[in-house]
């Protein structure tokens, strides 16, 4: 058996070297596939006892127009194709794939967010603060845990729960209480902080 030349086919090379031909060929391919869809859908209708006059009544068209479209070469308006398929019990799907290297896919549904993702986005975070005294200065370490994190101020040695984070804002607005270093009593306040940072309280 003789060997086939490696690489793309004649058709692929013809398309690559002649963009105008490639465009016209794509149009011809799509029209042909549209005509196949129309014929196969109509065939299923015939088997189910549907008549052309039934389609004509729904689409408010003359029966001769129904015949014209069903026997066409498929080069019909997109809206016509879609309407005909729907009344015959089918739904048209459209898609496009990259034809040139480097083009990103288009028209694809974005990955659906899971319930867990959604909950995580909406959930608030707890803010803990640890007081550290060093060489006469008092420093506070702010630690932010997501609500789903299995910990609380009782299981974290030292830090005190001082408030909740607003998850929709950046930088993080901490709806919290100002931590009084002397009394260890939270006082109502709002501070801006990045996650897990050291804050110097002057």
């Amino acid at each position, binding site marked *: 058996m*003789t060997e086939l030349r490696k690489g*793309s086919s*004649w058709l692929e090379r013809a398309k690559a070297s002649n963009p105008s031909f490639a465009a016209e060929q794509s149009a*011809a*391919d799509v029209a042909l596939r549209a005509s196949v869809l129309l014929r196969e859908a109509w065939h299923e209708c015939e088997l189910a006892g549907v008549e052309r006059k039934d389609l004509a009544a729904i689409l408010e068209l003359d029966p001769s127009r129904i015949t014209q479209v*069903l026997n066409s070469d498929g080069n019909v308006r997109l809206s016509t194709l879609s309407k005909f398929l729907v009344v015959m019990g089918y739904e048209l799907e459209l898609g496009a794939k990259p034809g040139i290297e480097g083009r990103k896919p288009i028209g694809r549904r974005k990955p659906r967010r899971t319930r867990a993702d959604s909950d995580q986005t909406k959930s608030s975070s707890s803010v803990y603060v640890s007081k550290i005294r060093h060489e006469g200065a008092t420093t506070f370490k702010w630690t932010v845990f997501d609500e789903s994190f299995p910990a609380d101020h009782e299981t974290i040695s030292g830090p005190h729960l001082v408030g909740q984070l607003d998850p929709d804002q950046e930088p993080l607005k901490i709806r919290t209480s100002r931590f009084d270093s002397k009394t260890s009593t939270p006082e109502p306040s709002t501070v801006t902080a990045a996650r897990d940072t050291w804050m110097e309280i002057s």
Partner: protein
Amino acid sequence: MERHSIIEGDDFEYKIVACVDEHGQRPAEDALDAMVRGEWGEDPEVAGTDLPNDEQIRAVNRLIAGMTFYAEHGYTAGLGPGRTVSINKLRYGLWEFKEGNKRIAYFDTQGDGVCNPKSWQRELGYFENDPGSKDDVAPLLDFELRLSHAFGKPPLQRKTPEQDMQTARKLMEEDLAHDRTA
């Protein structure tokens, strides 16, 4: 001797390949090259017009679309209800793709130097759920479809011109001989 793929796809039913004559030429591929430019002079539908001819280019787009569909699915888009058959069975194991009066004869082979002629399968049921259908169904051919001879069929003539028939057959024999000597 190198064969040229004309149309192929990863999960296609068939691969369409250019036939190679005894001199190493690929007449069908040359004809397709000319058609794509609208410069194929044997086209009866553009007789008397200046070349390149845009209508010939559009027609070859339809022809290639039909060939691609057939290679991909193993049946012609025109078969079935409301069909406009885009392949015909010829003689000697040859078939033809057609678009208007433009014809390209082809045959199928496993690449072993032999073409085993096949016929239409008049099966009950073109579609699985259509037991009453009596449409002709394209038979399962061998994987490689080789294009042998492109020709223009004279208008109003039902039969394939004998000269074109013999040219297509001669090219088939020359092409298969390459396989037998490889």
